[in-house]
């Protein structure tokens, strides 16, 4: 019989290993488990590699790791994942279940919530105990207001905004009972079929793991303007990002978007060029260690959250920065 308050975290897999956000999800899970005085369990699902990933979870010290391996779980498919995870939920009987608010989590959590008749609070950035009650906080109105929610069902599902929770660190003695779970998944029951998957690897460094990011906004004015940003990014070893307008206007690929509906990043250095600083963009980068703003409007919001700033036309400023960087960075 599981501990009375069981907290279950779903850990996504990416390219045959635990998703980089796994430690954050476990960190949030630990916080919730401590608040509720309960145990922490994890669930990993995949094709062949889920068992290895599950053993890796033990380094964080959990009570149990449920593991499901099935050929249909090799890549994410909402219907199969929902069915398999519902099975684990019935077994583990969690009070709270958490997962990352990634593209996968954003599809899986609502499916599971409806299937289990459970409440769901998406995109949470904080959790707290208010007396005996646990609460979860999420930004609403594009981050202009914060809403504090309490669960009304058991279980209640939570998705977590990336970079909002402190990652759990490994413990000295790995701990966690591995519990294999089998799920009956049959192809005939699925109502949608994936016929092909196509990789669209952008050139250059990936945003999610980049230590330095150079991002452009509407102020860049045209697709060609990003060439100057790319030169600077190359000199810095940085990834290229953008606020929403350049993506919507097709100046850069949609996957370059940093912000509430794009990538949420927290690099060591974030250089925002021609970005005024809409709330939904700030939501995606405000956690960066050092922020540099280059904008011709001295009143732009971005300067309020930046550490260094240049007021001026980016076409005049950037080549000088790039030239200097090439001299001083060898």
């Amino acid at each position, binding site marked *: 019989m599981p501990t009375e308050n069981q907290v279950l975290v779903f850990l996504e897999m990416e390219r045959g290993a635990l998703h980089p956000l796994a430690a954050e999800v476990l960190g949030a899970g630990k916080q919730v488990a401590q608040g509720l005085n309960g145990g922490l369990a994890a669930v990993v699902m995949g094709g062949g590699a889920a068992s290895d990933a599950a053993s890796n979870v033990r380094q964080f010290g959990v009570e149990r790791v449920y593991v499901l391996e099935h050929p249909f779980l090799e890549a994410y498919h909402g219907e199969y994942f929902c069915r398999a995870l519902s099975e684990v939920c019935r077994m583990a009987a969690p009070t709270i279940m958490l997962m990352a608010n990634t593209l996968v989590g954003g599809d899986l959590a609502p499916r599971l919530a409806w299937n289990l008749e459970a*409440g*769901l609070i998406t995109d949470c950035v904080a959790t707290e105990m208010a007396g005996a009650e646990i609460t979860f906080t999420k930004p609403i109105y594009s981050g202009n207001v914060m809403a*504090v929610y309490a669960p009304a069902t058991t279980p209640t599902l939570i998705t977590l905004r990336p970079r909002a929770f402190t990652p759990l660190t490994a413990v000295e003695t790995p701990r966690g009972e591995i519990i294999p779970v089998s799920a009956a998944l049959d192809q005939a029951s699925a109502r949608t079929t994936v016929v092909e998957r196509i990789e669209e690897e952008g050139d250059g460094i990936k945003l999610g793991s980049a230590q330095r990011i150079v991002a452009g906004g509407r102020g860049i004015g045209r697709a060609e303007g990003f060439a100057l940003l790319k030169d600077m990014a190359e000199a810095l070893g940085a990834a290229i990002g953008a606020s929403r307008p350049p993506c919507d206007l097709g100046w850069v690929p949609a996957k370059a978007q940093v912000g509430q509906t794009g990538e949420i990043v927290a690099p060591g250095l974030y250089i925002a060029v021609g970005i005024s600083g809409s709330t939904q963009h700030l939501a995606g980068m405000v956690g960066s260690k050092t922020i540099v703003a280059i904008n011709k409007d001295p009143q732009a919001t971005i300067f309020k959250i930046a*550490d260094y700033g240049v007021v*001026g036309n980016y076409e005049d*400023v950037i080549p000088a920065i790039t030239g200097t960087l090439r001299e001083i960075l060898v």
Partner: protein
Amino acid sequence: MHIIVCMKQVPDPEGPRDAFEINQTSGLVEPRGIPPVLSLFDENALEMALRIKDVHPAGAKVSVLSMGKRVSNAVMLKALAAGADELVKVEDDSLDAGRLDSFATAQVLAGAIRKLPHDLIIVGRQAADFNDGQVGIGIAHVLDLPVVTLARALTVQGCDMRIERVLASGHEVVCASLPAVIVASNEVGELRYPSMIQRREAKQKPVHTWGLNDIGLAAAPRPRVMRRHLYTPELKLRQCRIFDGGSPADAGRNLALTLKQDRVI
């Protein structure tokens, strides 16, 4: 072919921070000085529907479905002008967007969809106010229909659909049969811009107003999460060191040298 697009009016999410005033007594946000607009993500959904209508050989009828305490015809006019054929509103005092959760919202929308002919239901990936991103999947669950999320393009051939679905590392092609629910990705792109003539003609398009009893509900369904309170977050301001001496090129050079000196790079 009948397409239903669910659309919500929201306070302009790009409005200034102090426009989102919180009434602690009612527990609601009372927007000050910013107009209600169509939720941007729902505009993506409508654009997707109109693209199907553009190419569907037998034509398609696009109905916009919206619910709330009051739904503004003026806000919804933009959807009709862009090419939707009719507007269906479900209005009730209990349908205050600030009080409903996604569970209740999906139940009400599904109730209305049952009363309308539907081959395809398209919704936005999330509302621009509460960003829950649960309603499309909820509607599909209530109506027992297949659902594909994060769709950036789709083609319909007979009763079958091919959907391009966005993934973190690329995309996948998904097949599903109609009727179905599609959650449009923001990658669909912006809603087309209507002409003056379309705007004028839009005022003549049919608008149907229903109450909860018209869709077989006595009251708004009870929420599955409890909202305790709202607060305004503090923007973590930083002291910005501005480089303003000399020419823009000098400023750029000084910035780069300072980043090196401060060991940022």
